[in-house]
């Protein structure tokens, strides 16, 4: 259960970067957002989410900061770094090319 089997390898990273590009948020919020946005299509367990976030942090793509949230609760907020923005552009670019290439293939008419 630990591996997001239906996610293309590396796609989770891109999604996380994208969410954090929109606004800084904490891990819980990221997990909520994942569910909201993708419905049940993208199932990422909490057990995979945190290691993924920590990996992005260690790569220097996101940075974390402890903040007090709206309800007076301390939480770890992640935000995108300059490096992370560049990485997101690169991955989004790759993704665009990959998905359009795949859809072109899929749309080929059978003879």
């Amino acid at each position, binding site marked *: *259960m*630990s591996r997001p089997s239906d996610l293309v390898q590396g796609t989770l990273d891109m999604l996380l970067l994208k969410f954090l590009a929109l606004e800084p948020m*904490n*891990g*819980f919020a990221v*997990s909520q957002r994942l569910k909201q946005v993708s419905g049940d299509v993208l199932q990422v*367990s*909490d*057990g*995979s989410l*945190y*290691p993924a976030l*920590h*990996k992005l*942090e*260690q*790569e*220097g793509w996101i940075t974390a900061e*402890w903040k007090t949230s709206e309800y007076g*609760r*301390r*939480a*770890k907020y992640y935000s995108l*770094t300059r*490096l992370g923005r560049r990485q997101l552009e690169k991955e989004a670019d790759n993704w665009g090319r990959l998905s359009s290439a795949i859809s072109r293939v899929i749309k080929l008419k059978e003879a």
Partner: protein
Amino acid sequence: MRPEHWLYTIPLRLRSLFRWAQADQELDEELRDHLERKIEEYVAQGMTQEEAHRRARLDLGGMEQTKEKCRDTRRVNWIQDFVQDLRFGLRMLRKSPGFTGVAIFTLALGIGATTAIFSVVDSLLLRPLPYRNSHRVVRIWNTFSPRGMTELTASEPEFLEYRQSQTLAHVAGFALGSTTLTGRGDPARLSVSWGTSDFLAVLGTQPVLGRSFSPDEHEPGHDQVVIISHHLWRDRFGSNPAIIGKSVILNSKSSIVIGVMPPSFRFPSGDVDLWQPLPIAANSSNLGNHYLDLVGDLKPEVSLQQSNAEMKTILARIEQKYPAYYSGAVGLGVNLVPLREQMVGNVRPTVLVLMAGVGFMLLIACTNIAGLLLTRGEVRKKEIATRIAIGAGRTRIIRQLLAENLLLFLAGGAVGLVLAFLSLKLVPVEESLPLQQVVGPSLDFRVLSFAVVTFLTTGLLFGLMPALKTSHPYLNEMLKESGRDAMGSRHHTRTRSLLVMSEIAFSVVLLAGAGLMIASLMRLLGVQLGFDSANIVTLRLSLPELRYPNGRFAIFYKDFQEKVRSIPSVQAVAIVNQLPMSEVLANSSFEVEGRQLETGTNIANTQVISPDYFSAVRIPFIRGRALDEHDLNPAPSTVVVNQTLARKIWPDEDAIGKRLRLKSDAPWLTVVGIVGDIKNEGSSKPTKPELYFLYTEQSFGLWADLRSMTLVVRTSSEPQQLVNAIRRELNSLDPDLPIYKVQTLGEIVSASTSQTRLPAVLLSVFAGIALLLAAVGVYGVLAYTVAQSRHEIGVRMALGAPRQRILRSFLGYGIKWAAVGGGAGLVAAFILVRFMRSMLFEVGPYDPTIFLSVAGVLGIVVLMACYLPARRATHVDPMVALRYE
């Protein structure tokens, strides 16, 4: 990666490394916060508090596992883990000091001995010689195949021609000798190397202090200059740089010190004290005196074969140039030998066999440790299973066990280095190995690296295997068991049996090698030498020509012997020009009256002696009488021959009364006595024909330096005391004469067997340790098996199995191990011992007695090691064993 990336990541890594506790604290808080929110959410959806709690945790997939995964994303995690593992390992090792002590000591023996032998291998075979051109330097030898002579020195005219070589950058001749240093403290006998003009250029070495010889210093009459060795400079001249330009008195003549060689310069040998020029006239035609050792360096792009071919054409040219001299010598050749080959060629098999032997011992030590670690893993299986159950991954467990095992090997390596250092200090390897010519063994950077690589590879190999076995997943099942898991332990027993059998096999190889060497040594020591070396002190004297011109030195030796004879404890005194078994004896051709001898049979070793020599060293007379001073008229008119010569030249006649001479222009000498054969050239060499001449100044055709003689004294007193007394007597005759090479004849005889003794002793030590370790291994595994089978034994006994049967079934293990391991070892030994052929003396490498004894010794030791645990099995009380359940 890009530098910008590092800018971000390096602080992160450092933080994870050094603020580890804080990072972990934050990780904990983060996940806790997540859980709380999740629970709140589930509760809001209408779950009970308990249900929400459970679901939230399930989503997270196990708090500890997730934490561990997050930690793994920190790239430096392994460093922390490693440090942690080491700390834990240390704790575990401290908890069982007995196990730790045995393991460390075993490894220390293995690694220490291996390191010590490697340092010898390194200095003899691997390390470049300390000369700029070392790999291109060759020795140049004349050869004479009809008599099987491969290392003949050259004459001056030969040297002058060889020097014309186009394939060698330089060719130099040198000769070794000794000289007396006086005027600075006690007179000292120093070893000198006289070299022709290119001597230092061949090796490419310059003095560290002062200068090299200039070309004109190789002109006759300008050669009173000397370069001194570093050790002489240090010991005799207090390392004072002001020595350059000062004069010293050598053989009563003054010479100017112009340089000091570096300490690493050990050519032709490390005990050379001085180098002096050897002037050779460009038109020398002295064909008869072959006194020059030749050395040269190949030009960079020239191969050994090319140069060899060229030297042959040069030799042919020499033979054409002096047809009268060379016409009789059909079969003369020339051969180039690389310098290292020259120095260590004959000991290479010994050194490599020792290295292999010590390698086997290390393997056994490591195998033993692997077995111990496996057993220990068995004991700790509950601990490990528990750790796997609460979230440790298998790799993590392996890493931890490996770190612990590596700690053992590290400690073993460290103690081993100390052992290696001590053994290099204590074991007299110099006596049997030519370490004088190379940079001697020491624990330097190269050897330390070897030790580190050894401990790391053995540690990884032999530490990883038990770690893999111990962390095997079936351990999970074990928690459910009572701790006595039949499947698992059987699996382990098989591995351990394999380990034990390989230990037995390795020790068989070592035992066979040691057995062969010991048998050789016994035969060598059992050889009848033909003389009595006990209670004989020898020492050497050299009379400088300036103060002892012709007509003076024989009288001196006569007086000196009289003085020594007057010392109370002295029983007999004699002089001889060359001692038995100490160096290459001079030989000479001779003619027999009234017969023409074939080439090759007319050669005999020659020794010049005083009349009492035979009685002093107790060489028996077969027939006839000793030489006598009355035989001098004033040249000698008599000679004594040995049995071999008498038999060879006069097989059917009485040799006594026959006449022989050394040259056609020398006087005839009558054979007056036949003495017993002695092992004059060493225990392992056959006795050659020998001629003994009476010591005198009168020439009778023998070329010998009669100013340098060895005094042989049979005494009842302790050697050092006697030497002091002799020195006092000598001072009363001439206070400026040094005595040197003070040895007992026993020491000389024993040194002549050291080439066999060193490998015999070392291999026996290795084999003994190996056998002990193998026995311990056998004992350990069987004891463990017995302990594991208590329940089974109990059942069998309860069902009526007799004790004998139980005993036999456990001894059966031992017999199986000994048979399989021993068999494999014998096969391996059979393959390997042929590499020892050149080291053996009168023993074939496949000597059946030795192989049988090895098998016997091994069988006995293995059975003895098995007997104790097997007997313990028969003392199992069925009631206790069954209740143990």
